[in-house]
C-alpha cells in the first residue's frame, strides 16, 4: 500500500471494483469485449464470468509470485500468466458450451489484452497478499460482469424483446435491430455513461446555475 493512503476495509476493497471504480462505468476500461459480445445478456454474463475467472486466477498467481518476480520482467510475467489463464478459460468454455464459445468468438482470447486485468495485476495484485488481492479482483471482476450485463440486458431487451432468451413483449414485438449492430453497442454504453454522469451531476450540485448558454 502506498503510505498515506487509507487502508480499506475488506468490504470496501470488495466494493471498490463493483461501484466506486467500476471498470465499465467509471474507468471505461476493456471496452472491446464489453461492446462486442454484449448483444445478449447470456453472452455478456458468460464473458463477464470468463473475465472474472481469468482475473481471479492471474491475480492469485501474481500475488503469490509478487516477491519472486524481478521488476524488469514483471510485465512479461504478468502477460504470460494472463495468457495462460485465458487459454485455460478458452478450453473450459469449449467444454461447457460450444454455442457460447461460438458466440463469444475471438473475444475470449482477446481477454489477454483487457487492460482491466493487466491493470489489476500491476496496480494491486503485485503489491498485496493473495487474500486482499483476490478480494479486489473479485470486486473488479464482478463489477465488470455487472457492467457487461447492464449493457447486454438493454441490448437484448430492445434488440430482441427478450431477456435471457425469454420473450418479454409477446410475439409481435418489433426488435430494434440496431441494438445488436455495432452502433447500438456504442449508443447503449454511451447512454449508460450519460445516465451516470447525470446522476452524479445532480448529486454534486442539486441546484446548478444554468451553464453559459450561447444566447446570453
Amino acid at each position, binding site marked *: 500500500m502506498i503510505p498515506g493512503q487509507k487502508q480499506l476495509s475488506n468490504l470496501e476493497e470488495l466494493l471498490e471494483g463493483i461501484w466506486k471504480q467500476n471498470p465499465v462505468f467509471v474507468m471505461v476500461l476493456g471496452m472491446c469485449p464489453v*461492446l*462486442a*459480445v454484449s*448483444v*445478449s445478456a447470456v*453472452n455478456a454474463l458468460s464473458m463477464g464470468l470468463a473475465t472474472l475467472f481469468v482475473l481471479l486466477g492471474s491475480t492469485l*498467481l501474481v500475488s503469490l*509470485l509478487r516477491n*519472486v*518476480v*524481478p*521488476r*524488469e*520482467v514483471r*510485465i*512479461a*510475467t504478468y502477460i*504470460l*500468466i494472463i*495468457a*495462460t*489463464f485465458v*487459454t*485455460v478459460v478458452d*478450453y*473450459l468454455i*469449449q*467444454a*461447457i*458450451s*460450444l*454455442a457460447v*464459445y*461460438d*458466440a*463469444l*468468438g*475471438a*473475444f475470449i482470447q482477446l481477454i489477454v489484452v483487457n487492460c482491466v486485468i493487466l491493470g489489476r495485476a*500491476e496496480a494491486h495484485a503485485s503489491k498485496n497478499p493473495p487474500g486482499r488481492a483476490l478480494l479486489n479482483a473479485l470486486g473488479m471482476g464482478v463489477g465488470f460482469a455487472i457492467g457487461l450485463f447492464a449493457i447486454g440486458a438493454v441490448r437484448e431487451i430492445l*434488440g*430482441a424483446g427478450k431477456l435471457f432468451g425469454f420473450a418479454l413483449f409477446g*410475439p409481435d414485438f418489433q*426488435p430494434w*435491430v440496431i441494438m*445488436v*449492430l*455495432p452502433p*447500438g*453497442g456504442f449508443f447503449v454504453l454511451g447512454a449508460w455513461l450519460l445516465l451516470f454522469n447525470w446522476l452524479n451531476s445532480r448529486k454534486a450540485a442539486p441546484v446548478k446555475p444554468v451553464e453559459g448558454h450561447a444566447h446570453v
Partner: protein
Amino acid sequence: MNAASVPPSQPSTPSAAMIRTLGLVATVCGILIVTAYEGTLEAVAANKKLALERAVFKVIPGASSVKEFVVGPTGVQPAGNGVPEGAVKLYAAYDQAGSLKGLAAEGAAKGYSDTVRVLYAYDPEKQAITGIGVVSMRETPGIGDKIYTDAAFLKNFEALDVTLSADLKSLANAVKVVKHGGKQNPWEIDAIAGATVTCKAVGKGINESAQKLLPLLLPHLDKLKAGEPARPTPHPAASPPLSKRGQGGFDSGSASSQRLNPPQPPFEKGGSRASHAEGAAS
C-alpha cells in the same frame, strides 16, 4: 507500465535470476495449460461431434451418424489432418442400418456484411440439393436471416438440380439466383425480395462448392455408399468439423445475428416469420 517507471537508482536484477523466474513462471503456466487442455479434451470433442451431428441431421433428416471425408483429385479419404490442396471436405450421413442417407458439404460466399456459410445436403440419387442450413452469417436480422426462416425460399432447396454435365467436369447448369418469382428451371433459386444480396451469397456459395466438389466426388460415390468403416470419431483437435476452430465463432465475433437467432435450429421458427417476410417485400 514500462521501463521508464523504474527509478534509475534501483539495483538491477541479475539476468540469471530473471531467467530463473521466467522459467519458473513458464513452467507453472505450461502445467496449467496442458492440464486444462487434457482435461477438457474429451468434453470438447463430444461437444463438437454433437454440434456437427445436429447440423447435418438437420439437412439430412433420418440420418443417425455422420462421417467426415476429404474428396480430392486422388479420391475419397476419411478426414484426417487438415484438408489438402484442391480437396473438399464432405460429410456423409448414414441411417441406423448403416446405409448412406445423404451427403453434406459447406459452401461460403460474401454476403451483405460478411461471409455467409451454409451447409447443403446433396442427394446422389436425385443429383440434387435437398436442404440447406446456415452455419454462420452476420446478415441484417429481419432481412438477411430470412434465408433460414422464409419457407418459400427454403422450398428452393427441396430439389435443386445439380446434375453434372456430360463431361463430368462441371455442373450441367450452374446454380443461379433469379429475382423473386422468376424461377423457371430446377437449377434456379428464387430469391427473397428484399434480401437479394444474402440469397445471392447462398446461391454463389453452393454453386462454387458444388462445381468443385461434385466432379471430384461422383467417381468415388461407391466408396461412400459402402459406408467404409472409419474411425468412430475423428481427432477433434486435428480436424474440428463444422466449427473449425473459431471459423464460425471468430467471424461472428461482433454483433451477430447468430446469437439472437442461433443457426443450429434454423428451420424451427420458419413458420412464425414467413408471413412477415413476405410483407417486407420491397
